[in-house]
């Protein structure tokens, strides 16, 4: 059946069955491939998108639960000032190794900075621990969040 959802500021129609996770509606239905599939059960965070500004695991959210909420993916986050800063910090510090988890990391980091513009280490731990980086780039993720928030970055 057809669902109308708002993605990255645009109204989109997607034809999927009820119960289809938002992740697969985005990826296979709309060709929005930035959100990644990692676990399918909301444990790794690779699929993280924003729903009305909140970080949500799209692999575990059925399409019918989206309703009129605004969905923003990694493809759209650069249009916000904070998202753009986070992406720039990620690039400058060369955070990624394989990079597969980084769309989700950036979405979680952007949500953190929106809520807490100058996060302490404990804030970073709390906000980012739902996102697994198998390459374990955590040292640089932490540094990039601090850099994007204008805080001192330790080497």
């Amino acid at each position, binding site marked *: 059946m057809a669902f109308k959802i708002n993605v990255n500021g645009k109204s989109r129609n997607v034809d999927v069955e009820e119960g289809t996770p938002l992740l697969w509606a985005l990826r296979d239905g709309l060709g929005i*491939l930035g959100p*990644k599939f990692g676990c399918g059960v909301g444990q790794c965070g690779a699929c993280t998108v924003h729903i009305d500004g909140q970080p949500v695991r799209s692999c575990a959210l059925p399409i019918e639960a989206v309703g009129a909420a605004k969905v923003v993916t990694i493809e759209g986050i650069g249009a916000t000032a904070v998202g753009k800063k986070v992406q720039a910090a990620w690039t400058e510090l*060369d955070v990624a190794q394989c990079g597969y988890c*980084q*769309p989700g990391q*950036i979405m979680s980091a952007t949500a953190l900075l929106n809520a807490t513009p100058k996060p302490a280490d404990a804030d970073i731990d709390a906000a980012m*621990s739902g996102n697994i980086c*198998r*390459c*374990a780039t955590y040292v640089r993720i932490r540094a990039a969040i601090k850099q994007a928030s204008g805080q001192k970055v330790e080497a």
Partner: protein
Amino acid sequence: MADGFAEGASRRDLLKTGALAGGLVLSFNLAGKAGAAAPAADAKLNAYVSLTPDNKVTIVSKNPEIGQGIKTSLPMIIAEEFDVDWASVTTKQADGDPATYGRQFAGGSMATPLHWDELRRVGAAGRAMVVAAAAQTWNVPAAECTTASGVVYHKASGKKATYGALAAKAATLPAPDLKTVPLKDPKDYKILGKFMPQVDSAGLVTGQPLFGIDVVVPGMLYATFDKAPVFGAKVASADLAAAKAVKGVRQAFVVEGGTDLSGLVPGVAVVADSWWQARKGREKLNTQWAEHPTSKQSSAGYDAQALALSKAPPLRTERNDGDVAAGLKGAAKTVEAAYSYPFIAHAALEPMNCTAAFKDGKLEIWAPTQNPEAGRQLVAKTLGIAPADITLHMTRCGGGFGRRLANDYMVQAAWIAREAKAPVKMLWTREDDLRYDYYRPAGYHFLSGGVDASGSVTAWHDHFVSLGNDGRFASSAGMSPTEFPSRFVPNYRYDLSLIPTGVPTGPLRAPGSNALSFVIQSFIDELAHAAGADPVAFRLKLLGDGGMMGTPGQNGYAADRMRGVVKLAAEKAGWGKTKLPKGTGMGIAFHFSHMGYFAEVVQATVAADGAVKVDKVWVAADVGRQIVNPAGGINQVQGSVLDGLSAALGQVITIENGAAVQSNFGDYPLLRMADAPPVEVHFLITDNPPTGLGEPALPPAPPALCNAIFAATGKRIRSLPINTEALKSV
């Protein structure tokens, strides 16, 4: 430890040039001969550098990118000697094409040692040709010309020209001899050794479709593949009709498969308009699996067999130096200990997937693979088509860690696509991924060792009980007779016994070493404490005062290089100089693998409830005279260390009834942000050829942590993963 990636050393040079698309194409063919005995090690390498009149340089990156940064670092080597600005360079991912590019793989941390010399010469030869073109154009001696940032200068006449302007002429000139082409003095490097963010950085942070899972082909369908929990078991029955009744499901069929666990294994394919539909269809299959010979095997069974084998004479003795019995008898102190480690999975974050399209007898494949040519050969053999009829595109891999050296998922996608008569993207679930892996094999070491009154190790006996069938090690389950501390202990004996297994095993980042280092460096720590010695001083004494032990590049072990990193790691960590609170300790470990010398100090705190917190890690590394790209290099070291800690702190794949028990990140935990300590990396620059960084930082991390836990609690970890219950002090 390179798992088949050893490569012949001598190389024959052949250099061709030709004009293409109005630019200069330098085609370098460096074919290697490893000797008649090993024709499989014959390697050809072609690097392509192209240049357009507007002075833009394109450099092909030949190897698979799995996060190790190779798509950036190999082109950097060429660009440095070509003497162009890195900003003017665009890199291009090669297809799987060994006839053009030579051997292409991501494994064994081999790319830097294999390409360091050749690719510098490739770049330098290009520069020489552009200089020759300028010299002819200006009628001046080439020796009077200089270059900088893609421009040739002749100072005396004040002439200058961009490489791009000279490209057409340069392409008509003979190529210089690669062996004698002049190379830069490293002090003049402008690219090598500089922090260069990886070339895909912008694409990665904006969600561009770079990975295998992102491949979209016109008319493509989506597939799932249901495999047996017991590795390799055949399909007994499946409700194909029920699967096909699910909306969007186009086809469901049994793949008979074979018995080779690295080939096409039996299963049931469900093909649908979307992956979610294929997954829903799969849920209806209710596949029943045939009884399989290995269905009674279990981790508990292996444990029991190992214990029994440890008390029996070994299958064989792999090394026997001096007289271990006498060495133990004459020791001032002896220690006996049984060590073990479990199966672990690779758990690359991008689940195994591959896209394939079969048309008119030809196959096109888009694969996130570490080992493209092996995949092509497997697919060709299994499907009965010629390798030349397979086009293989290499996508970026969402992690490799050795998992994608096997190409089981590639042959599955190819088979399903041919059966389905449509392009197919086959994608596994996380559960599929954790339950069908080529696991790091479990292993058991029954050790005894002795130290004399002066704190020297007099005897070392390891009865290694490993996995293997028919008297041969299972893949990556081996230990070399030259593994440390053999050659450093006068009385050394290594006995071997093998347990038959039906569990597929294979290389996982620093194969062999990732487990052996835990055993060896922990037991050395036990001996140090038995001798009443400081663990750093004890290790330095064990390493002796010699230099290279054995043959460099083969079984060679440079004791002096190892002493260098042990001292550096201890110094940077403030070893013995820092007063640590109760419950906190420092541990040290070192390990040589993949041509790299690494020593690491871990500081850890153990809480009253047994919880382990890693406070900090200090790494000292000797990988030679040049770090190609510190951006990727430091990242690899930090990631490898945390990878090792992640495994030690919680990862185990348990086998029950012939199958893996764990299925997702709930029961197979990976390290998360809150548990990731700072990792300080120090490179000790020595005058040795540059070597790789994808793996060798991992092995010392688990034992350094376990030794820190001993320092903090007095409790010795002899089995992984670390059991925090046993560390409780309340």
